[in-house]
C-alpha cells in the first residue's frame, strides 16, 4: 500500500501508478497536454508540473511514480507561473485561428490557455507558416496548429501498430508527417485523430461543417460493421450523422475504432437508399405504396403455402440485422409460413463453424472476452486475418505480441505481418492436415482429457493416423510453445471453414482448444453473426440454441407462440438455393442480404433466384439480388433503429436509434405487418417488446432487459442455462485430400476498408479503397512478368474479370486474392463450391484461375 499526500489530501493506492493518476483517482485535476490515458506517459509538454517536497525542482506528474510518503502540491504560484510560461511558448507559433478552426470548443489547448494562460501574448514576431495539407482523402493536416505532443505518433506506433506517421524536423519546425508524405496511405483507423488535442489532424468527412457544440443529439451505440461490436458515440445535427466518435475507456474497444467504424457511416444518408417499396409489374420493378407491397407479399406467400405447403417457402436472415429482427423473422417463417427452411449467409463461415464447435464442445465455447487475448502467452491464428476482418480484435493480438506473447499465424494474415512470431505456411488448401498433425503432436504429449469421450475418440483417431511431426518450418516451435503455454488463445477465421473439408479443420481446432484448455475466438465479418444463430435463424434450432428435435424444448415455444412448430427438417442455405433451382422451393424471403454477390457459384444462384415464383428482398439499397426480386421493401439501417447485437464474445449490446429521416421501415416491423396480413398477428410495439418476449420464451435469456443490456455487461451465459455439447458427427475418415497443382488459385480477400453493400455506399471508404485489386505474391508476379498496377484478366471455370494488380509481400504461395466488396466484380461470383458434408458450408477451395496480362 502506497500512501502519499496530494494538496493536503491523503491518497492511498492499491497499485503502483504515477502521481498524475493518483491525483486523478483522488479527484484532483492536474492539467496535461501530452498525456493520454490510452498511451504511455511521455513527459514532453511539462504542463503537469507539480511540487514535491524534498525534490529541488518541479516534477512532471505524468512520469513521476508515486512513492510512499510523498508530499505533492499541484497548485502554487510557482507552478502557475511555469504553466503560464509553457502555454505562452506554445502560442508563439500557434495560429490562434480558433474561430475558424474546427477543434474550437473541444480543443485542449484552448481550454488550458483559457484557464492557465496569460491574457495576452508578448511575442510580436511572425508565426511559422505551414500550409494545410489536403492531399489525403480522409485526414487534413494543419501543422501550424501542431503542438508536438506526439500523441498521434505514439497512438499509431504503440497502440494501432500501423507505424504510418512520425515527427519530422526539429525545433520550431517539428511536425507530424506520414511516411508516405502526401497521403497517409495507412490503416485509416483515425485513432490519431481522436487523440490529437488540437485541430492539427481533422477529418475531411465533416471538416468545416459544424462546431462541436452544435451537435444536438449524442447517441451511444455499437458499430455495425463487424462482430467485435465496438462502442461508439454518434453525433447528430439536424437529423444528419455528423460524425462517429469513440469515447476513451468506453466499451470493450476502450475508445479505439477501425476505419469502417469511424468513417463508414455515410451510407445511412446515401442518395441511393431505396425510397419506396418496389413491386414487379409486367416484368418491371415499379414504385408502390407500403400497403400495396405488403398486401402483395402476404397474398403471394399465403397462396404458395396453400398450394405447396410451408416447405415451399424459405427465408434467409441476415447477420446485419438485430437479434430482435432475426427472432421475428424466424418466428414468421416457422409460424406464419410454416417452414423450417431458414438460414443465413453466415452458413458460409461463422455459423457453420460455430454450430459444429458447439456440438463438439458445448454451448458457449467461443464466448471469450477479447480482453483475454491481451493476456495470452500463445496465440494461434488460422483461417483469416483478424487485422482486417475484426480490426479491433487484431489490435488485441498486436498488443499481446508487443507484450511478448508468441503469435503463430497459419497461412496468410496481412494485418499481423509485423506481429508474427511463428509463420507457418502449410501447402495451400491443406491447412486442415497441418492442424490435424499439430493436434496429433499435442495429444501425444498431453494425452487425452477424458472429459468428452466423443471428442477424445476423434482425437485418438487423428493421432493414430498422423505421426505428429511435420517437416513444415515452425511446426516444432509452435508445438512446443503450445505445450508450454500457461494461457493459449486460438483465433479461427472463415477461410478454413469455407472448405469442403472444413469440418476437419474445425475439429482439429476444437481438439486443440479442448486439450490445451485454450480460449477460442471465431472471427465474425458481420455484426450479429452470433445473435443470428442464437435467435434461431438456422433450420434445426430454436432461439437460445434449443434443438428443434426435442419436444421438451419445442413445447414451451409452441405454447408461447400459440401454434405448432413445423416438424419437417429445414434446408440449409445452399440446399435452399439448390431447392429453388429444382422447384422444391417456390418462394424466398430475404432479409438484408445479397446472396447473388455474397455466395459462391454465381451462375447457380442466379438460376435459382430466376426459377423462384416469388422473391422478396428487404434491404436498404437496391442490390443485385433486389433487382431480381418480385417485391423489394426498403429497410432502415444501423443508427436508424434500436435493437441488440450479439458480438463474437457473445456480449449482447444495445444499438440505439440516432436518426430517423429515411423512408424505410425496421425489418421487424415489415415482417410484423406481413405476418398480420397472413393471419398470424404479432403486434410488437417496438424492439424492446420483442426482447421482452425473447426473455420470456427462451431459457437462455431469462430476465434479460434493455436496461441491463444498456450497461454493456450482458455477458455469456447471461442468467440463462447453456446446453451441454451433443455430438452429431465426428469428422469422416481422416484420409482423402485434394491435389492442388494449378498455377494460380483464386481466393477471396477480406479488405480492411470494406464489408460489402453498406461500405460500398460510404464515400469515405470508397475514397480510401475505390476498386477491387488482385493481390498476388512476389514470386508469382515474377513468373507472370507483371508489375504493380498492371491490369490483368482473371478467368475461372465460372467466369472472368479484369482488375488492376498489386504485389503483396505477405503472400508466399500461388494464391491470388480478390475482394468481394465491389459492385459487379465480386470474386465469389467466379468461384464454384462443394458442400462440406458436416457443416454444410460451401467449400470454395481450389478455385483454379488463369491470369493473363492485358
Amino acid at each position, binding site marked *: 500500500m502506497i500512501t502519499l499526500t496530494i494538496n493536503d489530501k491523503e491518497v492511498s493506492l492499491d497499485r503502483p501508478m504515477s502521481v498524475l493518476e493518483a491525483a486523478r483517482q483522488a479527484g484532483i485535476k492536474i492539467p496535461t497536454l501530452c498525456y493520454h490515458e490510452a498511451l504511455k506517459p511521455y513527459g514532453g509538454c511539462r504542463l503537469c508540473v507539480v511540487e514535491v517536497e524534498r525534490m529541488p525542482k518541479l516534477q512532471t506528474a505524468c512520469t513521476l511514480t508515486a512513492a510512499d510518503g510523498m508530499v505533492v502540491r499541484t497548485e502554487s504560484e510557482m507552478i502557475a507561473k511555469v504553466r503560464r510560461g509553457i502555454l505562452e511558448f506554445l502560442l508563439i507559433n500557434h495560429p490562434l485561428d*480558433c474561430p*475558424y478552426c474546427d477543434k474550437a470548443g473541444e480543443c485542449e489547448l484552448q481550454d488550458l490557455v483559457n484557464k492557465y494562460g496569460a491574457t495576452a501574448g508578448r511575442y510580436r514576431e511572425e*508565426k511559422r507558416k505551414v500550409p494545410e495539407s489536403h492531399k489525403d482523402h480522409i485526414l487534413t493536416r494543419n501543422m501550424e496548429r501542431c503542438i508536438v505532443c506526439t500523441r498521434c505518433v505514439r497512438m499509431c506506433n504503440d497502440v494501432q501498430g500501423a507505424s504510418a506517421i512520425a515527427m519530422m524536423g526539429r525545433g520550431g519546425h517539428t511536425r507530424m508527417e506520414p511516411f508516405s508524405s502526401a497521403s497517409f496511405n495507412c490503416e485509416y483507423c483515425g485513432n490519431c485523430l481522436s487523440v490529437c488535442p488540437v485541430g492539427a489532424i481533422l477529418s475531411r468527412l465533416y471538416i*468545416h*461543417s459544424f*462546431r462541436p457544440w452544435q451537435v444536438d443529439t449524442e447517441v451511444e451505440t455499437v458499430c455495425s460493421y463487424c462482430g467485435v461490436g465496438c462502442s461508439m458515440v454518434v453525433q447528430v445535427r439536424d437529423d444528419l450523422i455528423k460524425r462517429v466518435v469513440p469515447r476513451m475507456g468506453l466499451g470493450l474497444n476502450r475508445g479505439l475504432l477501425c476505419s469502417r467504424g469511424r468513417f463508414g457511416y455515410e451510407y445511412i444518408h446515401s442518395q441511393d437508399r431505396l425510397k419506396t417499396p418496389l413491386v414487379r409489374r409486367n416484368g418491371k420493378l415499379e414504385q408502390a405504396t407500403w400497403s400495396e407491397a405488403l398486401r402483395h407479399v402476404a397474398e403471394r406467400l399465403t397462396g404458395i403455402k396453400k398450394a405447396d405447403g410451408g416447405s415451399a417457402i424459405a427465408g434467409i436472415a441476415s447477420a446485419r440485422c438485430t437479434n430482435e429482427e432475426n427472432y421475428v423473422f424466424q418466428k414468421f417463417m416457422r409460424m406464419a409460413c410454416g417452414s423450417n427452411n431458414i438460414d443465413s449467409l453466415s452458413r458460409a463461415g461463422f455459423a457453420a463453424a460455430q454450430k459444429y464447435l458447439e456440438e463438439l464442445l458445448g454451448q458457449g465455447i467461443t464466448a471469450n472476452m477479447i480482453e483475454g487475448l491481451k493476456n495470452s502467452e500463445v496465440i494461434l491464428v488460422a483461417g483469416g486475418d483478424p487485422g482486417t476482418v475484426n480490426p479491433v480484435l487484431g489490435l488485441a493480438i498486436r498488443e499481446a505480441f508487443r507484450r511478448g506473447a508468441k503469435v503463430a499465424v497459419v497461412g496468410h494474415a496481412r494485418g499481423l505481418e509485423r506481429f508474427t512470431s511463428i509463420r507457418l505456411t502449410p501447402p495451400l488448401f491443406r491447412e486442415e492436415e497441418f492442424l490435424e498433425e499439430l493436434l496429433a503432436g499435442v495429444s501425444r504429449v498431453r494425452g487425452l482429457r477424458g472429459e468428452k469421450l466423443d471428442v477424445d475418440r476423434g482425437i485418438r483417431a487423428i493421432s493414430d493416423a498422423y505421426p505428429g511431426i511435420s517437416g513444415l518450418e515452425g511446426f516444432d516451435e509452435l508445438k512446443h510453445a503450445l505445450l508450454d503455454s500457461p494461457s493459449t488463445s486460438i483465433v479461427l477465421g472463415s477461410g478454413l471453414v469455407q472448405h469442403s473439408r472444413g469440418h476437419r479443420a474445425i475439429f482439429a481446432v476444437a481438439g486443440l482448444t479442448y486439450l490445451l484448455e485454450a480460449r477460442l475466438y471465431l472471427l465474425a465479418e458481420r455484426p450479429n453473426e452470433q445473435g443470428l444463430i442464437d435467435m434461431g435463424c438456422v433450420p434445426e434450432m430454436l432461439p437460445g440454441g434449443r434443438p428443434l428435435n426435442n419436444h421438451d424444448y419445442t413445447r414451451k415455444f409452441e405454447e408461447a407462440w400459440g401454434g405448432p412448430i413445423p416438424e419437417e427438417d429445414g434446408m440449409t442455405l445452399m440446399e435452399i438455393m439448390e431447392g429453388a433451382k429444382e422447384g422444391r422451393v417456390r418462394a424466398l424471403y430475404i432479409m438484408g442480404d445479397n446472396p447473388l454477390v455474397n455466395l459462391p457459384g454465381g451462375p447457380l444462384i442466379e438460376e435459382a433466384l430466376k426459377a423462384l415464383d416469388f422473391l422478396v428482398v428487404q434491404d436498404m439499397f437496391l442490390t443485385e439480388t433486389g433487382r431480381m426480386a418480385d417485391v423489394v421493401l426498403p429497410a432502415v439501417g444501423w443508427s436508424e433503429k434500436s435493437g441488440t447485437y450479439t458480438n463474437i464474445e457473445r456480449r449482447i449490446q444495445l444499438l440505439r436509434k440516432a436518426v430517423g429521416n429515411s423512408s424505410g421501415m425496421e425489418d421487424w416491423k415489415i415482417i410484423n405487418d406481413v405476418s398480420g396480413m397472413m393471419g398470424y398477428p404479432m403486434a410488437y410495439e417496438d424492439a424492446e417488446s420483442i426482447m421482452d418476449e425473447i426473455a420470456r420464451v427462451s431459457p437462455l435469456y431469462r430476465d434479460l432487459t434493455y436496461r441491463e443490456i444498456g450497461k454493456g455487461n450482458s455477458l455469456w451465459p447471461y442468467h440463462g442455462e447453456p446446453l451441454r455439447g451433443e455430438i452429431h458427427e465426428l469428422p469422416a475418415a481422416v484420409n482423402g485430400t485434394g491435389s492442388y497443382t494449378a498455377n494460380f488459385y483464386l481466393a477471396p480477400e477480406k479488405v480492411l476498408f470494406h464489408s460489402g453493400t453498406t461500405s460500398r455506399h460510404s464515400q469515405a471508404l470508397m475514397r480510401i479503397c475505390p476498386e477491387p485489386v488482385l493481390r498476388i505474391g512476389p514470386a508469382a508476379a515474377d513468373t507472370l512478368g507483371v508489375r504493380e498496377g498492371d491490369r490483368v484478366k482473371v478467368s475461372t471455370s465460372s467466369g472472368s474479370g479484369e482488375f488492376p494488380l498489386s504485389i503483396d509481400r505477405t503472400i508466399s504461395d500461388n494464391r491470388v486474392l480478390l475482394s468481394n466488396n465491389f459492385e459487379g466484380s465480386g470474386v465469389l461470383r467466379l468461384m464454384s463450391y462443394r458442400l462440406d458434408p458436416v457443416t454444410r458450408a460451401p467449400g470454395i477451395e481450389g478455385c483454379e484461375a488463369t491470369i493473363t496480362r492485358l
Partner: protein
Amino acid sequence: MSVVELVKKVLFMEVLQGLALTFRHMVSPSVTRQYPLEKREPFPGSRGLHALVRDAETGKERCVGCGLCAAMCPSQCIHIYTSEGDDHKKIVDRYEIEVLRCVYCALCVEACPYAALTLTDHFEYCGYTRDEFYYTKERLLENWDKYMAGEKGMNYIKNFWRPRSSDFAAPSPERKGP
C-alpha cells in the same frame, strides 16, 4: 371651512389652476411627432435590424461561420450552416436570423471575433407573413448595403462594439480581419 377656502371654492380656483396648465401647453411647442410622416433620426448606437458586414475588399460576407454569435444568442434565433469550399476553405452556406425572436441584446455582435455582424439603426420593419422576418445571408448582406453604406458601418462597429478581431490573428492567410 375657513374664509380663504370658501373664497377659493367660490372662485373655482383649482379649476382655473388646472386650466392654466392646459393653456400653457396649448401655446408651448408640440413634442409629438407625426410618425410615420415625420421621422426622427435614431440615436447613435441604437439597436435595430441585423446586418452582416460586407467586406469592402472581397465583396463577400466577412463572417467565417464560427458560430459564436449563435452560441451566445439568448433566444437562439441564429442558425448557421457551413461547409468546406472548393479551395478547402470554410464557407458559410446559410446564415439565418429569425428576427421576430430577437431581443436586441446585441450579444451576438459582441461575441463576433471578426466584427462581421452588427445591429443597424434601422428599426422599422413590417411584413404580412412571418417568413418575411426570416433573414437569410443574402438579405442580411443587403441590410448592410442599405443601412450601413460607406464609412458609416465600420464606424458604427468601432464606436459602439469593441471589435474582438484585435484579439485574433487573421482567420486564414488569404482572409484578413478588419
